[in-house]
C-alpha cells in the first residue's frame, strides 16, 4: 500500500482516490485493532485460565468445618459426618398411598398415618425422615418414587459415646461448641479452627487431646462399678501425667451421651472434676506436710502429741482413729491424725500457712481448656482455728482437678504445672512450671505416700508390682449448713511408681454407703482406695510402667495363691 501511496498522481482524479484510500486505511486499522483485541483476550484466557468455581464444584460449605477431635493415640473422639435427610415434594408424587406404603415398608419406624397427613397437607415440601443411615438412604433412593429425594446434612458425631463425654463436650444444632473442648475450639476463634484446616483439601487437621481413651474407659468402668457396689450417688476420677500435666482421663459420673438428640442435661450430669468444689478432707494433709517439711518446722523425725484432743477456743479437734499417744511424723500421716496435722500447721503459723497455700495456687481459680471451672472455697477469716482445721482439709473446698494438680506438683520434684487436655512435652511443662517446694521435700512426701500405701489407709490400692503411693480423705458433706455424719465424700489421691512418680490417680465417691463387704465402714480406705487400686492395675500396663516385684510381693502372691486353693477345696 505504501508503494501505491508514494506515487503521487497528478491528474484530477487524485484527490478522490486519495480519500478512498484513507477510508480503507481507517477500516483496516479498526479491524486490526479488533482482531488484536480478540487475539489478546484469547491469549490471556489461554495463558491465565480463570479458576472455575461454583458451577463445576459441588456444594462448598459456607461454615468453617469443625476439626476432628482425636485422643493421644489418634483414636477418633468427634467427627463430622454427612447424613442424609429424606424429603418429599408432594406435588410431584403421583400416587400418595403407594408412596406411603413403599416408604413405611423400607423405614418401619416411620408412622404411616403421620406420613400420609404430611404428604396430603404439604404443598411443595415435607420432611419424611431426618438423619438416616446410608443404607436407608440408598434403599429409599432405589424405590424410585418421583418427588422423593434426599439432601446431605452435616452432623457432629461422637463415636466413643459416653467415654469422652465431659472432655469433648458437645455442640448445639448449629454446630457451635457449647461445652468441653468443643467450646474451647470455638473460643479460640475462627482463626484457630481455620489454622487447623487445609482450605485446598477442604479438610482439617484433627485437634489432638492428651486423653487416652483406654485409660478413660478403665476409669469409667471401675468408678461406675464402685458407685453400684457402694450405693454412691456420684463419682469421679482423674489420671494425670505428673511430669507434663497432661490429663489422661477425666471422669465424672453420672455422665451423658453427647450424641443424644435432646441435650437437656441436668446439673447432676455436670463435670464434677472441674465445675464443682469439694472438700477433699485428709488429702489436703499432704499439702500441710509439704508446707511443714519445706519451711523446716518439721522433719521426718519430728513427733506430735496426739494424746488428747486439741482444744482451740471452744472447738475440739479429735482423731477419727485416736491412738492416744505421741506420734512420729510418718505415723501422723499413716494414721491420718487430725490433731498431729493441726499442731504441725500451728507451728508454721497462720501467715505462713496462707502464704504457702497461695504459693501452691490454692487461692486462685484453676483454669484449663475446659470452660467449666470453679473457684476454691476457703475459710473467710484466717483465725488460729481456721489454720488448724484447714490443715486437715476442713472448711476447704477445691475443684478435684486443682487438688490433683497441687499433689502432682508436690510429688514430681516440686514443679507446679497447670493441667492441660492438649498434648504437651516435658520441656514445655518444665518451662511453664512454678517451683513450689524443694526437691528434698518432694522426696520426703514420696516416702510418706508410699508408706501410707504399704501400711496405712491406702493399703488396698497397693497393687503388686507398681509401687503405688497415696493419701485418702473422708470428708463429711455440708448439708443445710451443717456437717453431716452420714453423708461423706471419700477420695484417694495417689501416684505410681513411687520411686519416680509418672502418673497421678484421683478417685472420688460421693456418699458411698457401708456394705457387708466393708464391715460397716464407709471411709475412703474401704471404697475409693480399692477402686483406685483396680484402676491402677488396669492402666499401668497400658501406660508402659514396668512392674517390679520385691521379695515381699512374692510372699503376698504365695499367700493369695494359698487362699485361692483353700477356697477351691
Amino acid at each position, binding site marked *: 500500500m505504501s508503494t501505491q501511496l508514494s506515487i503521487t498522481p497528478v491528474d484530477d482524479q487524485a484527490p478522490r482516490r486519495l480519500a478512498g484510500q484513507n477510508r480503507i486505511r481507517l477500516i483496516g486499522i479498526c479491524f486490526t485493532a479488533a482482531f488484536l483485541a480478540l487475539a489478546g483476550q484469547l491469549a490471556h484466557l489461554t495463558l491465565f485460565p480463570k479458576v472455575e468455581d461454583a458451577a463445576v464444584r459441588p456444594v462448598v460449605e459456607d461454615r468453617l468445618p469443625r476439626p476432628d477431635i482425636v485422643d493421644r493415640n489418634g483414636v477418633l473422639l468427634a467427627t463430622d459426618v454427612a447424613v442424609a435427610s429424606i424429603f418429599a415434594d408432594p406435588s410431584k408424587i403421583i400416587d400418595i398411598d403407594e408412596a406411603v406404603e413403599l416408604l413405611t415398608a423400607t423405614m418401619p419406624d416411620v408412622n404411616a398415618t403421620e406420613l400420609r397427613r404430611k404428604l396430603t397437607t404439604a404443598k411443595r415440601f415435607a420432611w419424611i425422615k431426618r438423619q438416616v443411615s*446410608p443404607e436407608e438412604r440408598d434403599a429409599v433412593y432405589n424405590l424410585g418414587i418421583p418427588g422423593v429425594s434426599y439432601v446431605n446434612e452435616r452432623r457432629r458425631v461422637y463415636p466413643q*459415646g459416653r467415654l469422652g463425654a465431659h472432655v469433648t463436650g458437645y455442640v448445639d444444632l448449629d454446630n457451635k461448641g457449647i461445652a468441653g473442648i468443643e467450646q474451647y475450639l470455638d473460643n479460640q476463634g475462627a482463626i484457630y479452627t481455620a489454622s487447623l484446616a487445609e482450605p485446598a483439601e477442604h479438610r482439617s487437621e484433627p485437634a489432638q487431646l492428651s486423653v487416652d481413651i483406654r485409660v478413660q474407659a478403665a476409669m469409667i468402668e471401675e468408678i461406675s462399678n464402685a458407685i453400684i457396689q457402694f450405693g454412691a450417688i456420684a463419682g469421679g476420677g482423674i489420671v494425670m501425667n505428673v511430669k507434663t500435666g497432661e490429663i489422661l482421663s477425666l471422669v465424672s459420673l453420672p455422665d451423658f451421651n453427647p450424641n443424644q438428640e435432646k441435650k437437656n442435661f441436668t446439673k447432676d450430669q455436670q463435670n464434677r472434676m472441674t465445675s464443682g468444689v469439694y472438700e477433699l478432707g485428709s488429702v489436703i494433709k499432704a499439702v500441710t506436710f509439704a508446707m511443714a517439711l519445706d519451711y523446716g518446722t518439721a522433719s521426718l523425725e519430728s513427733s506430735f502429741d496426739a494424746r488428747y484432743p486439741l482444744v482451740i477456743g471452744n472447738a475440739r479437734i479429735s482423731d477419727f482413729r485416736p491412738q492416744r499417744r505421741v506420734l512420729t511424723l510418718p505415723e501422723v500421716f499413716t494414721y491420718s491424725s487430725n490433731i498431729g496435722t493441726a499442731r504441725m500447721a500451728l507451728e508454721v503459723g497462720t501467715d505462713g500457712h496462707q502464704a504457702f497455700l497461695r504459693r501452691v495456687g490454692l487461692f486462685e481459680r484453676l483454669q484449663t481448656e475446659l470452660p467449666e471451672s470453679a473457684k476454691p472455697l476457703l475459710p473467710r477469716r484466717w483465725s488460729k482455728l481456721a489454720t488448724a482445721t484447714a490443715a486437715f482439709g476442713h472448711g476447704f473446698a477445691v475443684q478435684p482437678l486443682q487438688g490433683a494438680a497441687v499433689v502432682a506438683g508436690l510429688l514430681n520434684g516440686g514443679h507446679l504445672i497447670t493441667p492441660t487436655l492438649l498434648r504437651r512435652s516435658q520441656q514445655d511443662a518444665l518451662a511453664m512450671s512454678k517451683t513450689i517446694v524443694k526437691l528434698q521435700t518432694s522426696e520426703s512426701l514420696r516416702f510418706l505416700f508410699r508408706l501410707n500405701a504399704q501400711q496405712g489407709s491406702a493399703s488396698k490400692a497397693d497393687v503388686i508390682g507398681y509401687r503405688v503411693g497415696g493419701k485418702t480423705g473422708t470428708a463429711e458433706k455440708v448439708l443445710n449448713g451443717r456437717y453431716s455424719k452420714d453423708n461423706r465424700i471419700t477420695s484417694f489421691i495417689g501416684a505410681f511408681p513411687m520411686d519416680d512418680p509418672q502418673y497421678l490417680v484421683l478417685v472420688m465417691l460421693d456418699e458411698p454407703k457401708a456394705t457387708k463387704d466393708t464391715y460397716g465402714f464407709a471411709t475412703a480406705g474401704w471404697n475409693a482406695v480399692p477402686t483406685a487400686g483396680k484402676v491402677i492395675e488396669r492402666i499401668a500396663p497400658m501406660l508402659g510402667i514396668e512392674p517390679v516385684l520385691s521379695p515381699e510381693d512374692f510372699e503376698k502372691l504365695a499367700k493369695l495363691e494359698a487362699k485361692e486353693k483353700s477356697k477351691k477345696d
Partner: protein
Amino acid sequence: MHKFLNFILVVTLLVSGFIVYSLEHTTRGLEREIARSQRGIDEETENMRFLNAEWSSLTRPDRLRMLAAQHLGLSTLKAWQIVKIGDIVTKVPPEPVIKLEAQGSDPIGSIIDKYQQ
C-alpha cells in the same frame, strides 16, 4: 496480492476457529471429568469419615473388653504375668519336656539344617 492475502486470512480464520472450538470442546469434557472426579473424591472422603467414625465406635475400649472377656476368656493383666525378655531364660524349664532329636523327628531343626547346607 489482495486476493491472496484475503484468501490466507479466511483460511487462517477457519482453521483458528476450528482449533478454538475443538479446544473448547475438549476443555468442557475435561471440566466435566474434573467435576465428576471431584464429586467422587468428596463422596469417598465422606465415606472415609463415616467409616472412621464407625471403626472408632466399634473399637471402643469398653466394647472390646466385653468381647474379649466373653469370647476369649481374657481378663486384666497382672503384674506378675509380665516378664522381661532377659528374664525369660530363668522361666524356661531346664530340660525340654519332649526331646525331639531323641525321637528322631525334629521338623523345624531339619528345615534349618537343610538351609544351612
